[in-house]
């Protein structure tokens, strides 16, 4: 984790030192980005910018970014939770009824190919009437988050061997008790990687959702605002991006916190979602 951060920082500064300031252009296509101070400010410049006030006389940038992070974290958490519940219910329904799996799974996959840009205005329209406007962003986050959970959990619920299922049958356990005692615990090694993907998707959904619904107060909005000033103040937009990355880490950390006690004695399966 720490080592990963160090490597990322080294790569950034390394490229900045070695890369062409005008970017590497091959056959008229820029394959590597510009390495000048305008496109890739030094890390210490970004750090300094965090400490400086947002505007002359305003609050320091780090505080603004942190507040925006908290706002978006709330939205992400709501979307992540809703998406997870929806994903779990869908997976259980698909496991229970073959017909539901056959009828629903293609649409679950299809749902993720609908461009978010097309969907966002529709959902944004619900804001103010059906729900507060921040909740519409949560809906978008949930929309992205439910998918890995539904697909991963379905595989997990179907993972018990025929022997395990027969054992439960010999105990005259019905579908529900088989789900609780056998299928759900057996699915945990599949669930956690799926939750990780869902967490990342929820963060992306929240950030992009804020931008496309025009919701104020979150990190997505901040990225847009700061990027408008990129020519005069290039380091500023990166502070907002750092905030978004922090959000992703927080969600991943929360999933790990849940996973650690539950998976201590479990083998880890190789999981490929989809």
């Amino acid at each position, binding site marked *: 984790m720490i080592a990963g951060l160090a490597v990322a920082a080294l790569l950034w500064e390394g490229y900045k030192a070695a890369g062409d300031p005008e970017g590497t252009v091959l056959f008229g296509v820029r394959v590597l980005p510009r390495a000048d101070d305008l496109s890739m400010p030094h890390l210490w410049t970004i750090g300094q910018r965090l400490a400086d006030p947002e505007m002359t006389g305003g609050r320091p940038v780090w505080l603004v970014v942190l507040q925006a992070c908290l706002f978006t974290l709330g939205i992400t958490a709501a979307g992540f939770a809703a998406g997870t519940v929806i994903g779990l219910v869908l997976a259980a329904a698909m496991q229970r009824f073959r017909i539901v799996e056959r009828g629903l799974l293609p649409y679950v996959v299809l749902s993720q190919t609908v461009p978010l840009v097309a969907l966002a205005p529709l959902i944004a329209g619900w804001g103010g009437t059906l729900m507060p406007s921040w909740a519409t962003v949560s809906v978008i986050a949930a929309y992205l988050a439910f998918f890995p959970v539904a697909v991963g959990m379905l595989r997990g619920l179907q993972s018990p061997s025929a022997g395990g299922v027969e*054992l439960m049958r010999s105990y005259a356990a019905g579908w529900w008790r088989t789900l609780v005692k056998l299928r759900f615990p057996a699915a945990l090694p599949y669930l956690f990687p799926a939750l990780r993907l869902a967490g990342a998707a929820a963060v992306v959904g929240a950030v992009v959702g804020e931008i496309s619904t025009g919701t104020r107060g979150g990190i997505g909005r901040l990225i847009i605002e700061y990027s408008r000033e990129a020519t005069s103040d290039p380091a500023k937009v990166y502070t907002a991006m750092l905030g978004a990355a922090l959000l992703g880490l927080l969600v991943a950390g929360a999933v790990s916190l849940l996973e650690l006690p539950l998976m201590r004695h479990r*083998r880890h399966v190789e999981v490929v979602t989809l």
Partner: protein
Amino acid sequence: MSELASPAPDIVPAPERAASVIVDDVTKVFNQGRSDEVLALSGVSLTVGGGEFVSLIGPSGCGKSTLLRLIADLIEPTTGTVTVAGRPAGQARRDQEYGIAFQQAGLFEWRTVRRNVELPLELRGVSKAERRARAEEMLELVGLADFAGHYPGQLSGGMQQRVAIARALAVQPPLLLMDEPFGALDEMTRERLQSELLGICAKTGTSTVFVTHSISEAVFLSGRVVVMSARPGRITASIEVELPSRDEAGRQAPAYFEKITEVRQALRS
């Protein structure tokens, strides 16, 4: 309860000796109508009396596990009927009339050894304290009391198999179905568990259907050894076994060796 409905104490029926399992002319075809159709069992009839110990023996693939799974109502016969404890097999399963130990241990890896043994008790709504006591007792019996807190992944194959046996015994079922339960055990453990099993069955009047590949094990344990042949699976012989005693002396008795020879000949023909 009304005065009329309660039976007078002097006409309480004697302990039931009625048949525990009746398999009547059962045929089992897997994947019927497909290219990989298998006739696993053909015209099998078998009756297991109350408290009787019956072993099934026969070459690999002759349908022993299939027959056991039919009795357990885990699969349905293609033709014929299976009756357990006087009821259709499906009803008997729902009434929890039997305990089963499969050929593979089939433990739940996320439960400790103790909680694996407790599982069937849990599903029957047995109280926590009693569950625990019963699990400890059964683990003691199979010699794994020290491993109650371990996870299945930390045990050897034979130890896992013993946990599965403890799990099957924990509910003290009127009918025990066991599919090569001692297959993965060393000779000493195997002989000890054989004696324990006989003791339990004698004490509680449990009827047992026991699948094994070992002729000596079948003869030592059973009141009757049922010999099967493969392709299609059929019952070719049913050999009654009378031993002077079922202990060390029993293993030395001439009757024991005579029966072993008889079963071996039945298997060969």
